[in-house]
Protein backbone atom coordinates (compact mmCIF):
# COMPACT_ATOMS: atom_id res chain seq x y z
CA UNK A 1 0.00 0.00 0.00
CA UNK A 2 2.71 2.39 1.05
CA UNK A 3 4.87 1.62 -1.92
CA UNK A 4 1.94 1.90 -4.27
CA UNK A 5 1.21 5.26 -2.75
CA UNK A 6 4.78 6.37 -3.26
CA UNK A 7 4.76 5.16 -6.85
CA UNK A 8 1.53 6.98 -7.55
CA UNK A 9 2.92 10.13 -6.01
CA UNK A 10 6.12 9.88 -8.06
CA UNK A 11 4.17 9.31 -11.24
CA UNK A 12 1.94 12.24 -10.44
CA UNK A 13 4.94 14.46 -9.75
CA UNK A 14 6.23 13.64 -13.22
CA UNK A 15 3.03 14.61 -14.97
CA UNK A 16 1.71 17.43 -12.82
CA UNK A 17 3.87 20.49 -13.38
CA UNK A 18 2.22 22.52 -10.61
CA UNK A 19 4.08 20.67 -7.89
CA UNK A 20 7.31 22.27 -9.07
CA UNK A 21 8.03 25.43 -7.08
CA UNK A 22 8.37 28.51 -9.26
CA UNK A 23 10.45 31.53 -8.46
CA UNK A 24 12.48 32.59 -5.48
CA UNK A 25 9.58 33.01 -3.03
CA UNK A 26 8.76 29.31 -3.28
CA UNK A 27 5.55 29.95 -5.14
CA UNK A 28 3.67 26.90 -6.30
CA UNK A 29 2.63 27.00 -9.93
CA UNK A 30 -1.02 26.26 -10.58
CA UNK A 31 -3.65 26.86 -13.23
CA UNK A 32 -7.35 27.61 -12.99
CA UNK A 33 -9.55 26.46 -15.88
CA UNK A 34 -12.72 28.54 -16.13
CA UNK A 35 -15.99 27.05 -17.32
CA UNK A 36 -16.40 29.61 -20.09
CA UNK A 37 -14.77 32.49 -21.98
CA UNK A 38 -13.38 35.42 -20.01
CA UNK A 39 -16.27 37.55 -18.72
CA UNK A 40 -17.46 39.32 -15.57
CA UNK A 41 -18.96 36.06 -14.26
CA UNK A 42 -15.35 35.32 -13.24
CA UNK A 43 -14.38 38.82 -12.10
CA UNK A 44 -13.27 37.82 -8.59
CA UNK A 45 -10.60 35.47 -9.92
CA UNK A 46 -9.14 38.19 -12.14
CA UNK A 47 -9.22 40.74 -9.29
CA UNK A 48 -7.40 38.29 -6.99
CA UNK A 49 -4.82 37.60 -9.70
CA UNK A 50 -4.22 41.25 -10.57
CA UNK A 51 -4.06 42.37 -6.95
CA UNK A 52 -1.53 39.64 -6.16
CA UNK A 53 -3.73 37.75 -3.69
CA UNK A 54 -2.75 34.37 -5.14
CA UNK A 55 0.95 35.26 -4.91
CA UNK A 56 0.48 36.29 -1.29
CA UNK A 57 -1.12 32.88 -0.75
CA UNK A 58 1.96 31.23 -2.26
CA UNK A 59 0.40 30.34 -5.62
CA UNK A 60 1.69 31.43 -9.02
CA UNK A 61 -1.67 31.15 -10.77
CA UNK A 62 -2.46 31.17 -14.47
CA UNK A 63 -6.11 31.60 -15.46
CA UNK A 64 -7.08 29.58 -18.55
CA UNK A 65 -10.41 30.47 -20.13
CA UNK A 66 -12.80 27.69 -21.03
CA UNK A 67 -14.84 27.37 -24.18
CA UNK A 68 -17.44 25.39 -26.05
CA UNK A 69 -15.16 22.40 -26.72
CA UNK A 70 -13.62 21.98 -23.29
CA UNK A 71 -14.81 19.98 -20.31
CA UNK A 72 -13.25 21.35 -17.13
CA UNK A 73 -13.74 18.06 -15.25
CA UNK A 74 -11.59 16.20 -17.79
CA UNK A 75 -8.81 18.77 -17.71
CA UNK A 76 -8.67 18.78 -13.90
CA UNK A 77 -8.94 14.98 -13.62
CA UNK A 78 -6.12 14.52 -16.14
CA UNK A 79 -3.89 16.98 -14.31
CA UNK A 80 -3.76 19.40 -17.26
CA UNK A 81 -5.23 22.04 -14.91
CA UNK A 82 -4.92 22.26 -11.13
CA UNK A 83 -8.17 24.01 -10.29
CA UNK A 84 -11.35 24.18 -12.28
CA UNK A 85 -14.50 26.23 -12.22
CA UNK A 86 -16.82 23.64 -13.70
CA UNK A 87 -20.41 23.61 -14.88
CA UNK A 88 -22.10 22.98 -11.56
CA UNK A 89 -23.63 20.33 -9.32
CA UNK A 90 -24.96 18.60 -12.43
CA UNK A 91 -21.57 18.27 -14.14
CA UNK A 92 -19.93 17.19 -10.86
CA UNK A 93 -22.55 14.42 -10.57
CA UNK A 94 -21.92 13.37 -14.17
CA UNK A 95 -18.15 13.31 -13.65
CA UNK A 96 -18.37 11.32 -10.42
CA UNK A 97 -20.71 8.86 -12.07
CA UNK A 98 -18.05 8.35 -14.77
CA UNK A 99 -15.54 7.76 -11.93
CA UNK A 100 -13.53 10.87 -12.75
CA UNK A 101 -11.40 11.53 -9.66
CA UNK A 102 -12.54 15.10 -8.98
CA UNK A 103 -13.76 16.75 -5.78
CA UNK A 104 -15.87 19.87 -5.39
CA UNK A 105 -14.26 22.30 -2.93
CA UNK A 106 -16.69 25.20 -3.22
CA UNK A 107 -19.86 26.38 -4.96
CA UNK A 108 -20.04 29.84 -6.51
CA UNK A 109 -23.69 30.27 -7.55
CA UNK A 110 -26.05 29.35 -4.72
CA UNK A 111 -29.20 29.59 -6.84
CA UNK A 112 -30.11 28.22 -10.24
CA UNK A 113 -28.47 30.72 -12.59
CA UNK A 114 -30.83 30.14 -15.50
CA UNK A 115 -34.48 31.02 -16.03
CA UNK A 116 -37.05 30.20 -18.70
CA UNK A 117 -38.26 33.28 -20.52
CA UNK A 118 -41.48 34.00 -22.42
CA UNK A 119 -43.05 37.16 -23.75
CA UNK A 120 -45.06 39.11 -21.19
CA UNK A 121 -47.80 39.75 -23.78
CA UNK A 122 -47.78 36.12 -24.94
CA UNK A 123 -50.15 33.26 -24.15
CA UNK A 124 -47.94 31.73 -21.44
CA UNK A 125 -48.83 32.98 -17.95
CA UNK A 126 -48.35 29.83 -15.87
CA UNK A 127 -46.39 26.59 -16.24
CA UNK A 128 -49.61 24.86 -17.34
CA UNK A 129 -49.65 27.16 -20.39
CA UNK A 130 -46.45 25.48 -21.66
CA UNK A 131 -48.71 22.80 -23.15
CA UNK A 132 -48.32 22.63 -26.91
CA UNK A 133 -45.62 25.29 -26.99
CA UNK A 134 -42.14 25.22 -28.46
CA UNK A 135 -39.28 25.53 -25.99
CA UNK A 136 -35.54 25.76 -26.59
CA UNK A 137 -33.16 24.89 -23.79
CA UNK A 138 -29.67 23.56 -23.09
CA UNK A 139 -29.47 19.80 -23.03
CA UNK A 140 -26.76 19.89 -20.38
CA UNK A 141 -28.99 19.89 -17.31
CA UNK A 142 -31.38 22.81 -17.84
CA UNK A 143 -33.64 20.49 -19.83
CA UNK A 144 -34.15 18.27 -16.78
CA UNK A 145 -34.83 21.23 -14.52
CA UNK A 146 -37.58 22.33 -16.90
CA UNK A 147 -38.97 18.79 -17.17
CA UNK A 148 -39.12 18.68 -13.38
CA UNK A 149 -40.88 22.04 -13.17
CA UNK A 150 -43.41 21.06 -15.83
CA UNK A 151 -44.02 17.68 -14.19
CA UNK A 152 -45.17 19.59 -11.10
CA UNK A 153 -47.67 21.38 -13.33
CA UNK A 154 -48.89 18.02 -14.60
CA UNK A 155 -47.22 18.17 -18.00
CA UNK A 156 -45.43 15.13 -19.44
CA UNK A 157 -42.77 14.95 -22.14
CA UNK A 158 -45.24 14.68 -24.99
CA UNK A 159 -47.17 17.79 -24.03
CA UNK A 160 -44.71 20.31 -25.50
CA UNK A 161 -41.87 20.50 -28.00
CA UNK A 162 -38.40 20.81 -26.52
CA UNK A 163 -35.48 21.62 -28.81
CA UNK A 164 -31.77 22.11 -28.13
CA UNK A 165 -30.90 25.78 -27.89
CA UNK A 166 -28.22 27.06 -30.21
CA UNK A 167 -25.82 29.92 -29.54
CA UNK A 168 -28.25 32.71 -30.31
CA UNK A 169 -31.48 33.80 -28.63
CA UNK A 170 -32.56 35.29 -31.96
CA UNK A 171 -35.18 32.58 -32.77
CA UNK A 172 -37.08 33.70 -29.65
CA UNK A 173 -36.71 37.36 -30.60
CA UNK A 174 -38.08 36.50 -34.05
CA UNK A 175 -41.02 34.68 -32.40
CA UNK A 176 -40.05 31.30 -33.87
CA UNK A 177 -40.08 29.75 -30.40
CA UNK A 178 -42.27 30.48 -27.37
CA UNK A 179 -39.84 29.84 -24.53
CA UNK A 180 -36.10 30.41 -24.38
CA UNK A 181 -33.57 29.54 -21.67
CA UNK A 182 -31.32 32.33 -20.41
CA UNK A 183 -28.75 32.70 -17.67
CA UNK A 184 -29.76 35.65 -15.51
CA UNK A 185 -26.40 37.32 -16.05
CA UNK A 186 -25.77 36.69 -19.76
CA UNK A 187 -28.46 35.79 -22.30
CA UNK A 188 -31.04 37.73 -20.30
CA UNK A 189 -29.12 40.92 -21.07
CA UNK A 190 -29.24 40.19 -24.81
CA UNK A 191 -32.99 39.52 -24.52
CA UNK A 192 -33.51 42.80 -22.65
CA UNK A 193 -31.62 44.60 -25.39
CA UNK A 194 -33.64 43.08 -28.22
CA UNK A 195 -37.11 42.64 -26.71
CA UNK A 196 -37.15 45.03 -23.77
CA UNK A 197 -37.20 44.19 -20.05
CA UNK A 198 -40.93 44.90 -19.65
CA UNK A 199 -41.85 42.54 -22.47
CA UNK A 200 -40.29 39.51 -20.80
CA UNK A 201 -41.70 37.07 -18.25
CA UNK A 202 -39.35 34.71 -16.39
CA UNK A 203 -40.03 31.34 -14.81
CA UNK A 204 -37.49 30.83 -12.03
CA UNK A 205 -36.70 27.22 -11.03
CA UNK A 206 -36.08 28.24 -7.41
CA UNK A 207 -39.65 29.59 -7.19
CA UNK A 208 -40.84 26.07 -8.01
CA UNK A 209 -38.73 24.34 -5.40
CA UNK A 210 -35.89 23.29 -7.68
CA UNK A 211 -32.46 24.75 -6.92
CA UNK A 212 -29.38 23.85 -8.88
CA UNK A 213 -26.24 25.45 -7.46
CA UNK A 214 -23.80 25.92 -10.30
CA UNK A 215 -20.22 27.09 -11.02
CA UNK A 216 -18.38 24.63 -8.81
CA UNK A 217 -14.71 24.86 -7.82
CA UNK A 218 -13.12 21.46 -8.41
CA UNK A 219 -9.73 19.85 -7.82
CA UNK A 220 -8.48 16.36 -8.48
CA UNK A 221 -8.77 13.82 -5.66
CA UNK A 222 -5.01 13.73 -5.59
CA UNK A 223 -4.68 17.48 -5.06
CA UNK A 224 -7.36 17.32 -2.36
CA UNK A 225 -5.50 14.54 -0.59
CA UNK A 226 -1.89 15.68 -1.00
CA UNK A 227 -2.13 19.47 -0.96
CA UNK A 228 -5.12 20.54 1.15
CA UNK A 229 -3.31 23.68 2.34
CA UNK A 230 -2.89 24.83 -1.26
CA UNK A 231 -6.61 24.31 -1.94
CA UNK A 232 -7.49 26.36 1.14
CA UNK A 233 -4.96 29.05 0.17
CA UNK A 234 -6.51 29.20 -3.30
CA UNK A 235 -10.03 29.55 -1.90
CA UNK A 236 -8.90 32.20 0.59
CA UNK A 237 -7.29 34.31 -2.16
CA UNK A 238 -10.27 33.76 -4.46
CA UNK A 239 -12.73 34.92 -1.80
CA UNK A 240 -10.57 38.01 -1.16
CA UNK A 241 -10.78 38.83 -4.87
CA UNK A 242 -14.55 38.28 -4.95
CA UNK A 243 -15.13 40.41 -1.85
CA UNK A 244 -13.37 43.28 -3.62
CA UNK A 245 -15.28 42.69 -6.84
CA UNK A 246 -18.66 42.46 -5.11
CA UNK A 247 -17.97 45.64 -3.17
CA UNK A 248 -16.67 47.52 -6.22
CA UNK A 249 -18.30 46.25 -9.41
CA UNK A 250 -16.36 48.68 -11.55
CA UNK A 251 -13.10 47.17 -10.31
CA UNK A 252 -14.40 43.71 -11.21
CA UNK A 253 -15.41 44.73 -14.72
CA UNK A 254 -12.14 46.63 -15.24
CA UNK A 255 -10.12 43.56 -14.25
CA UNK A 256 -11.97 41.40 -16.76
CA UNK A 257 -11.87 43.98 -19.54
CA UNK A 258 -8.13 44.43 -19.13
CA UNK A 259 -7.87 40.81 -20.26
CA UNK A 260 -10.68 40.89 -22.86
CA UNK A 261 -10.95 44.54 -23.98
CA UNK A 262 -13.39 43.95 -26.85
CA UNK A 263 -16.22 42.93 -24.50
CA UNK A 264 -19.27 45.14 -24.22
CA UNK A 265 -19.03 47.12 -20.98
CA UNK A 266 -22.75 47.56 -20.19
CA UNK A 267 -23.23 43.82 -20.71
CA UNK A 268 -20.33 43.05 -18.35
CA UNK A 269 -21.64 45.49 -15.72
CA UNK A 270 -25.02 43.78 -15.83
CA UNK A 271 -23.31 40.38 -15.55
CA UNK A 272 -21.23 41.52 -12.58
CA UNK A 273 -24.38 42.66 -10.78
CA UNK A 274 -26.46 39.57 -11.52
CA UNK A 275 -23.71 37.00 -10.96
CA UNK A 276 -22.97 38.72 -7.64
CA UNK A 277 -26.60 38.24 -6.53
CA UNK A 278 -26.35 34.50 -7.22
CA UNK A 279 -23.17 34.29 -5.14
CA UNK A 280 -24.53 35.89 -1.97
CA UNK A 281 -27.93 34.15 -2.12
CA UNK A 282 -29.06 31.10 -0.18
CA UNK A 283 -26.63 29.51 2.24
CA UNK A 284 -23.92 32.02 1.41
CA UNK A 285 -25.79 34.65 3.45
CA UNK A 286 -24.98 32.84 6.72
CA UNK A 287 -22.02 30.70 5.77
CA UNK A 288 -20.05 32.91 3.42
CA UNK A 289 -19.05 32.81 -0.23
CA UNK A 290 -18.51 29.48 -2.02
CA UNK A 291 -20.49 27.67 0.68
CA UNK A 292 -21.39 24.06 -0.11
CA UNK A 293 -25.04 23.85 0.94
CA UNK A 294 -25.41 20.12 1.56
CA UNK A 295 -29.22 19.87 1.86
CA UNK A 296 -29.62 21.78 -1.43
CA UNK A 297 -27.09 19.56 -3.18
CA UNK A 298 -28.72 16.46 -1.74
CA UNK A 299 -32.06 17.65 -3.10
CA UNK A 300 -30.54 18.29 -6.54
CA UNK A 301 -28.98 14.84 -6.43
CA UNK A 302 -32.27 13.19 -5.51
CA UNK A 303 -34.05 15.14 -8.25
CA UNK A 304 -31.57 13.88 -10.87
CA UNK A 305 -31.83 10.36 -9.50
CA UNK A 306 -35.62 10.49 -9.73
CA UNK A 307 -35.44 11.62 -13.34
CA UNK A 308 -32.78 8.97 -14.07
CA UNK A 309 -30.21 11.48 -15.20
CA UNK A 310 -27.87 9.68 -12.82
CA UNK A 311 -28.46 5.97 -12.57
CA UNK A 312 -27.11 5.13 -9.11
CA UNK A 313 -26.88 7.17 -5.90
CA UNK A 314 -23.55 8.96 -5.51
CA UNK A 315 -21.39 9.29 -2.42
CA UNK A 316 -21.94 13.01 -1.93
CA UNK A 317 -19.66 13.16 1.12
CA UNK A 318 -16.78 12.11 -1.12
CA UNK A 319 -17.79 14.33 -4.04
CA UNK A 320 -18.25 17.52 -2.00
CA UNK A 321 -15.55 18.44 0.51
CA UNK A 322 -16.17 21.49 2.72
CA UNK A 323 -13.03 21.07 4.81
CA UNK A 324 -10.96 23.47 2.68
CA UNK A 325 -13.53 26.22 3.14
CA UNK A 326 -14.00 25.48 6.82
CA UNK A 327 -10.28 25.99 7.39
CA UNK A 328 -10.91 29.69 6.62
CA UNK A 329 -12.49 31.71 9.46
CA UNK A 330 -16.14 32.50 8.75
CA UNK A 331 -15.53 36.25 9.04
CA UNK A 332 -13.09 36.05 6.12
CA UNK A 333 -15.59 34.21 3.98
CA UNK A 334 -18.49 36.62 4.34
CA UNK A 335 -19.19 38.72 1.24
Amino acid sequence: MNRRHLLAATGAAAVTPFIRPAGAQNLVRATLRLKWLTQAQFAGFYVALQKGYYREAGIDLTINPGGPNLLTENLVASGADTFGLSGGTDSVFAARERNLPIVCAGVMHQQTPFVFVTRADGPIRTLADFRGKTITTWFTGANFVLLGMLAQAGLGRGDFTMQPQQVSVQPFVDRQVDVVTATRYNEFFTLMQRVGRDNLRSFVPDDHGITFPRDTVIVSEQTARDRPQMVTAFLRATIRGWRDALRDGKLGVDSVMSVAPTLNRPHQEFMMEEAGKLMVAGGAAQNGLFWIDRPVIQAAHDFFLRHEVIKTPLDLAAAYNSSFLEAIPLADRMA
Partner: protein
Amino acid sequence: MKSTAMAALRLLGGVILAGLVWEAVVVGFGIRPHLLPRLSDIFAAIALTPGAYWAGLQRTAAETLIGFAAGTAVGIINGLVFFRAPLLRDMLLPVFVVSQTIPVIAFGALVVMWFGNTLMAKAVIAFYLTFFPVTVNTLLGLNSVDPRQAALLRSFGATPRQILFRLQLPMALPQIFVALRLGASLSLVGAIVGEWFGDNTGIGVLLLQAMYNESVVALWAAILCAALLGTGFYALVAWAERRIVFWGAEQ
Protein backbone atom coordinates in the same frame (compact mmCIF):
# COMPACT_ATOMS: atom_id res chain seq x y z
CA MET B 1 7.30 48.18 -61.92
CA LYS B 2 4.83 50.76 -63.08
CA SER B 3 2.30 48.10 -63.96
CA THR B 4 2.63 46.61 -60.45
CA ALA B 5 1.83 50.01 -58.96
CA MET B 6 -1.16 50.30 -61.26
CA ALA B 7 -2.37 46.84 -60.28
CA ALA B 8 -2.08 47.75 -56.61
CA LEU B 9 -4.05 50.93 -57.24
CA ARG B 10 -6.76 49.01 -59.09
CA LEU B 11 -6.97 46.53 -56.21
CA LEU B 12 -7.27 49.36 -53.70
CA GLY B 13 -10.00 50.93 -55.82
CA GLY B 14 -11.87 47.63 -55.91
CA VAL B 15 -11.67 47.23 -52.13
CA ILE B 16 -12.89 50.78 -51.53
CA LEU B 17 -15.73 50.26 -54.01
CA ALA B 18 -16.79 47.03 -52.27
CA GLY B 19 -16.73 48.86 -48.93
CA LEU B 20 -18.90 51.67 -50.28
CA VAL B 21 -21.38 49.18 -51.75
CA TRP B 22 -21.56 47.39 -48.37
CA GLU B 23 -22.24 50.63 -46.51
CA ALA B 24 -24.79 51.80 -49.09
CA VAL B 25 -26.67 48.47 -49.17
CA VAL B 26 -26.97 48.31 -45.37
CA VAL B 27 -28.14 51.92 -45.09
CA GLY B 28 -30.22 51.89 -48.26
CA PHE B 29 -32.16 48.70 -47.59
CA GLY B 30 -32.33 49.26 -43.84
CA ILE B 31 -30.77 45.87 -43.03
CA ARG B 32 -31.02 45.12 -39.31
CA PRO B 33 -27.61 45.46 -37.63
CA HIS B 34 -27.65 41.96 -36.14
CA LEU B 35 -27.83 40.53 -39.67
CA LEU B 36 -25.22 42.76 -41.25
CA PRO B 37 -23.81 45.83 -39.51
CA ARG B 38 -22.51 48.91 -41.33
CA LEU B 39 -18.86 48.68 -42.32
CA SER B 40 -18.22 52.01 -40.61
CA ASP B 41 -19.60 50.60 -37.32
CA ILE B 42 -17.19 47.68 -37.62
CA PHE B 43 -14.24 50.01 -38.18
CA ALA B 44 -15.40 52.11 -35.24
CA ALA B 45 -15.43 48.99 -33.03
CA ILE B 46 -11.87 48.16 -34.09
CA ALA B 47 -10.79 51.77 -33.48
CA LEU B 48 -12.23 51.58 -29.96
CA THR B 49 -9.82 48.81 -28.85
CA PRO B 50 -7.17 48.68 -31.58
CA GLY B 51 -4.68 47.09 -29.18
CA ALA B 52 -6.77 43.95 -28.74
CA TYR B 53 -7.13 43.44 -32.49
CA TRP B 54 -3.48 44.19 -33.18
CA ALA B 55 -2.34 41.79 -30.44
CA GLY B 56 -4.72 39.13 -31.77
CA LEU B 57 -3.47 39.62 -35.31
CA GLN B 58 0.16 39.28 -34.24
CA ARG B 59 -0.46 36.23 -32.09
CA THR B 60 -2.48 34.38 -34.73
CA ALA B 61 0.04 35.32 -37.42
CA ALA B 62 2.89 33.92 -35.30
CA GLU B 63 1.02 30.64 -34.70
CA THR B 64 0.16 30.36 -38.39
CA LEU B 65 3.69 31.08 -39.58
CA ILE B 66 5.38 28.67 -37.17
CA GLY B 67 2.91 25.89 -38.01
CA PHE B 68 3.18 26.60 -41.72
CA ALA B 69 6.99 26.67 -41.71
CA ALA B 70 7.20 23.43 -39.74
CA GLY B 71 4.56 21.81 -41.94
CA THR B 72 6.39 22.87 -45.10
CA ALA B 73 9.77 21.61 -43.88
CA VAL B 74 8.42 18.29 -42.61
CA GLY B 75 6.21 17.87 -45.69
CA ILE B 76 9.09 18.36 -48.14
CA ILE B 77 11.38 16.05 -46.16
CA ASN B 78 8.61 13.43 -46.03
CA GLY B 79 8.13 13.74 -49.78
CA LEU B 80 11.86 13.28 -50.42
CA VAL B 81 12.11 10.29 -48.07
CA PHE B 82 9.04 8.63 -49.60
CA PHE B 83 10.40 9.27 -53.10
CA ARG B 84 13.70 7.60 -52.24
CA ALA B 85 12.23 4.78 -50.13
CA PRO B 86 9.00 3.44 -51.68
CA LEU B 87 8.77 0.80 -48.93
CA LEU B 88 8.60 3.51 -46.28
CA ARG B 89 6.03 5.33 -48.40
CA ASP B 90 3.81 2.24 -48.55
CA MET B 91 4.13 1.81 -44.80
CA LEU B 92 3.69 5.40 -43.60
CA LEU B 93 1.54 7.20 -46.15
CA PRO B 94 -1.61 5.28 -45.13
CA VAL B 95 -0.92 6.25 -41.51
CA PHE B 96 -0.71 9.90 -42.56
CA VAL B 97 -3.98 9.55 -44.44
CA VAL B 98 -5.64 8.13 -41.33
CA SER B 99 -4.21 10.99 -39.25
CA GLN B 100 -5.90 13.46 -41.58
CA THR B 101 -9.30 11.88 -41.11
CA ILE B 102 -9.33 12.89 -37.42
CA PRO B 103 -11.43 16.05 -37.23
CA VAL B 104 -9.28 18.91 -36.06
CA ILE B 105 -11.83 19.74 -33.35
CA ALA B 106 -11.32 16.32 -31.74
CA PHE B 107 -7.60 16.75 -32.05
CA GLY B 108 -7.68 20.22 -30.49
CA ALA B 109 -8.94 19.00 -27.11
CA LEU B 110 -6.01 16.58 -26.95
CA VAL B 111 -3.47 19.22 -27.92
CA VAL B 112 -4.64 21.41 -25.02
CA MET B 113 -4.04 18.52 -22.62
CA TRP B 114 -0.56 17.96 -24.06
CA PHE B 115 0.70 21.50 -24.59
CA GLY B 116 -1.62 23.65 -22.46
CA ASN B 117 -2.62 27.14 -23.57
CA THR B 118 0.65 27.83 -25.32
CA LEU B 119 1.47 29.37 -28.68
CA MET B 120 3.01 25.99 -29.53
CA ALA B 121 -0.33 24.18 -29.12
CA LYS B 122 -1.86 26.29 -31.91
CA ALA B 123 1.24 25.97 -34.08
CA VAL B 124 0.97 22.18 -33.73
CA ILE B 125 -2.60 22.24 -35.07
CA ALA B 126 -1.55 24.52 -37.95
CA PHE B 127 1.30 22.11 -38.63
CA TYR B 128 -1.05 19.13 -38.54
CA LEU B 129 -3.20 20.65 -41.29
CA THR B 130 -0.23 21.77 -43.41
CA PHE B 131 2.26 18.91 -43.54
CA PHE B 132 0.05 16.39 -45.32
CA PRO B 133 -0.76 18.27 -48.55
CA VAL B 134 2.90 19.32 -48.78
CA THR B 135 4.02 15.70 -48.37
CA VAL B 136 1.68 14.44 -51.04
CA ASN B 137 2.42 17.19 -53.53
CA THR B 138 6.19 16.95 -53.06
CA LEU B 139 5.97 13.25 -53.79
CA LEU B 140 3.71 13.91 -56.77
CA GLY B 141 6.09 16.56 -58.12
CA LEU B 142 9.15 14.36 -57.73
CA ASN B 143 7.42 11.42 -59.40
CA SER B 144 6.40 13.54 -62.35
CA VAL B 145 10.01 14.19 -63.36
CA ASP B 146 10.83 12.45 -66.63
CA PRO B 147 13.22 9.57 -65.74
CA ARG B 148 14.97 10.03 -69.10
CA GLN B 149 16.12 13.49 -67.98
CA ALA B 150 17.56 11.97 -64.78
CA ALA B 151 19.22 9.24 -66.87
CA LEU B 152 20.74 11.91 -69.14
CA LEU B 153 22.21 13.81 -66.17
CA ARG B 154 23.49 10.55 -64.71
CA SER B 155 25.21 9.74 -68.00
CA PHE B 156 26.98 13.11 -67.72
CA GLY B 157 28.33 11.91 -64.36
CA ALA B 158 25.95 13.83 -62.05
CA THR B 159 25.74 12.52 -58.46
CA PRO B 160 22.31 11.63 -57.01
CA ARG B 161 22.52 14.76 -54.87
CA GLN B 162 23.17 16.91 -57.94
CA ILE B 163 20.27 15.29 -59.78
CA LEU B 164 18.02 15.99 -56.79
CA PHE B 165 18.92 19.65 -56.41
CA ARG B 166 19.43 20.56 -60.08
CA LEU B 167 16.60 18.59 -61.63
CA GLN B 168 14.08 16.81 -59.46
CA LEU B 169 13.42 19.37 -56.73
CA PRO B 170 13.17 22.36 -59.11
CA MET B 171 10.83 20.37 -61.36
CA ALA B 172 8.68 19.52 -58.35
CA LEU B 173 8.47 23.13 -57.15
CA PRO B 174 5.32 24.15 -59.07
CA GLN B 175 3.51 21.17 -57.58
CA ILE B 176 4.88 21.95 -54.10
CA PHE B 177 3.66 25.53 -54.36
CA VAL B 178 0.14 24.33 -55.11
CA ALA B 179 0.26 22.67 -51.66
CA LEU B 180 1.82 25.73 -50.06
CA ARG B 181 -0.99 27.97 -51.27
CA LEU B 182 -3.43 25.45 -49.82
CA GLY B 183 -1.35 25.26 -46.65
CA ALA B 184 -1.43 29.04 -46.25
CA SER B 185 -5.20 28.93 -45.77
CA LEU B 186 -5.23 25.67 -43.82
CA SER B 187 -2.58 26.75 -41.31
CA LEU B 188 -4.61 29.88 -40.52
CA VAL B 189 -7.70 27.72 -39.96
CA GLY B 190 -5.63 25.49 -37.69
CA ALA B 191 -4.35 28.40 -35.63
CA ILE B 192 -7.85 29.89 -35.23
CA VAL B 193 -9.43 26.56 -34.28
CA GLY B 194 -6.58 26.01 -31.82
CA GLU B 195 -7.49 29.28 -30.14
CA TRP B 196 -11.01 27.99 -29.49
CA PHE B 197 -9.64 25.72 -26.77
CA GLY B 198 -9.25 28.37 -24.13
CA ASP B 199 -6.86 31.25 -24.64
CA ASN B 200 -6.71 34.99 -24.01
CA THR B 201 -5.23 36.39 -27.22
CA GLY B 202 -5.83 35.76 -30.91
CA ILE B 203 -8.29 36.27 -33.75
CA GLY B 204 -9.96 32.95 -32.82
CA VAL B 205 -10.48 34.17 -29.25
CA LEU B 206 -12.07 37.39 -30.52
CA LEU B 207 -14.30 35.39 -32.87
CA LEU B 208 -15.47 33.12 -30.06
CA GLN B 209 -16.09 35.94 -27.60
CA ALA B 210 -18.08 37.90 -30.18
CA MET B 211 -20.08 34.85 -31.23
CA TYR B 212 -21.12 33.83 -27.72
CA ASN B 213 -21.82 37.38 -26.61
CA GLU B 214 -23.97 37.80 -29.73
CA SER B 215 -21.99 40.90 -30.53
CA VAL B 216 -22.35 40.98 -34.30
CA VAL B 217 -20.18 44.05 -34.84
CA ALA B 218 -17.30 42.46 -32.91
CA LEU B 219 -17.86 39.23 -34.85
CA TRP B 220 -17.48 41.06 -38.16
CA ALA B 221 -14.45 42.90 -36.84
CA ALA B 222 -12.79 39.56 -36.07
CA ILE B 223 -13.83 38.18 -39.46
CA LEU B 224 -12.25 41.17 -41.22
CA CYS B 225 -9.02 40.62 -39.25
CA ALA B 226 -9.00 36.94 -40.22
CA ALA B 227 -9.65 37.86 -43.85
CA LEU B 228 -6.84 40.39 -43.80
CA LEU B 229 -4.44 37.86 -42.34
CA GLY B 230 -5.54 35.09 -44.70
CA THR B 231 -5.35 37.25 -47.80
CA GLY B 232 -2.01 38.72 -46.80
CA PHE B 233 -0.47 35.34 -46.15
CA TYR B 234 -1.83 33.86 -49.36
CA ALA B 235 -0.50 36.84 -51.32
CA LEU B 236 2.91 36.36 -49.69
CA VAL B 237 3.04 32.71 -50.76
CA ALA B 238 1.85 33.57 -54.27
CA TRP B 239 4.49 36.31 -54.51
CA ALA B 240 7.19 33.86 -53.38
CA GLU B 241 5.96 31.40 -56.00
CA ARG B 242 6.27 33.99 -58.77
CA ARG B 243 9.81 34.83 -57.65
CA ILE B 244 11.03 31.27 -57.15
CA VAL B 245 9.21 29.36 -59.90
CA PHE B 246 9.75 32.14 -62.42
CA TRP B 247 9.69 29.73 -65.35
CA GLY B 248 6.48 27.91 -64.92
CA ALA B 249 3.86 29.77 -62.90
CA GLU B 250 0.51 28.67 -64.23
CA GLN B 251 -1.10 32.00 -63.55
